[in-house]
């Protein structure tokens, strides 16, 4: 599976498909950090929220890089539908890492953070971005061509998923558990996150992502 992951990473990079989401990430971070200094944890909470659509889009782009027939050839050569699907998701995680690192490093480069409680702020920021990756990965996978079929349906799943994740996750939402804990984690970081909240939100993100990825896996049984 390592060869498959490397091939998909190489395809994603060589075709330049990583550039649009990278530009989108930089624009969003530029808007976020363009207005002066903010507290570390609070800024990172909003940054993680903003990276959710970028990472979901990036996942979709990565999974769509390979021609359909090549994906099927990989499946036959690997002799496993599951390994083929997991290979794509692992590659998506690996390309999410540099985006997260940029999101964590950029505010320091532009001096947009108040240097107070730096250690705990960095840890909380890393945690906030880390729990955004699995839900973004799950939504991106669900909107990939192999599952969505047509570009229109794929765009509807991606855009609809992002909007629903934000709207349903609002504090006043009657069903916040239907959305990944994006706004909740940003809110928690702004108010000072306790360890119980961190554990609870992490579990929520894992369960939400697990459920959506299970749906992706179920759909991939018959879609190659």
């Amino acid at each position: 599976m390592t060869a498959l992951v490397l091939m998909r990473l190489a395809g994603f990079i060589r075709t330049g498909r990583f550039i649009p989401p990278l530009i989108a990430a930089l624009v969003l971070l530029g808007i976020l950090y363009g207005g002066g200094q903010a507290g570390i944890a609070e800024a990172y909470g909003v940054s993680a929220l903003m990276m959710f659509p970028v990472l979901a889009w990036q996942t979709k782009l990565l999974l769509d890089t390979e021609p359909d027939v090549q994906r099927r050839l990989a499946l036959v050569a690997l002799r496993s539908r599951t390994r083929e699907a997991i290979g794509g998701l692992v590659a998506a995680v690996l390309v999410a890492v540099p985006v997260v690192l940029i999101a964590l490093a950029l505010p320091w480069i532009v001096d947009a953070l108040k240097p107070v409680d730096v250690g705990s702020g960095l840890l909380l920021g890393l945690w906030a971005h880390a729990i955004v990756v699995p839900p973004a990965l799950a939504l991106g996978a669900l909107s990939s061509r192999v599952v969505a079929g047509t570009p229109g349906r794929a765009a509807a799943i991606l855009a609809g998923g992002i909007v629903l994740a934000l709207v349903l996750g609002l504090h006043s939402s009657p069903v916040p558990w239907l959305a990944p804990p994006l706004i909740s984690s940003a809110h928690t970081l702004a108010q000072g996150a306790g360890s119980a909240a961190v554990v609870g939100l992490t579990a929520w993100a894992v369960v939400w992502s697990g459920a959506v990825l299970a749906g992706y896996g179920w759909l991939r049984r018959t879609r190659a």
Partner: protein
Amino acid sequence: MVSPMRLHEVSFRYRRRSEWVLLEVDAGIEAGEIVVVRGRNGAGKSTLLQLIAGVLRPTRGRIVDRPGRIGWVPERFPAEQPFTVSGYLDAMAAFAGAGSPELWLERLGLVPFRTVRLGELSKGTAQKVGLAQALISEPDLLILDEPWEGLDAAARDLVPGIVAELVAKDVAVLVSDHRGETARLPGATTWTVASARVSVEEPVEQAPWVIEVSAEDGPAAVAALRAGGHRVLRVRHADQATGVPGSHSDGATVPAQTAGGGAA
């Protein structure tokens, strides 16, 4: 392939409520067997091959005892990828846990294209890369979807020889064809796909052809027939033969089948 692979009541359609592409297909393929899949365009040949390759899953029914290693050559090789021939085949070999693709690079004449990007290859050369990726895994079942499509005459002649070689090693070969090229595959079972049904026709043993050539042309004629993938069953000089129909004093009699395959 230890036990023969079987399709039990396999039905397939791409979407719910859409028309059945294949309906209640019952068929099997054994080690060392050649199956030619025939049918008009859109009949469902490629769908059937993809079901057998494991790319598609039957909507109903099941496929049992599918061999572990399958090589699949799609009808159109996806050449729009940012890799060189060598890089691509190395990666595909790694997927399959196979060794170096060097042998097939050489046999298929791909060595000069080793560093060429897939997207820059001609259709025929790209199709050869498709063939190579299927062969490097040393498959127990080779599935060829219109393998002659886009190949030049020289490359087309390679396919029957490779098929014969694999069959001799007990590899099962499934090949779809609408150009009549599979006439060069001897002893093949025929599956005909029509109206979503598959009918199986066992191979019919045919009487060999007898071709007479002059003695001085004999060796070259035999070599040319074999190089062309034809199975030469017997070669003898007319002066060695008694009562061989059509034999005469200055010729060589070459009973041969006009089909690809092994040596005499």
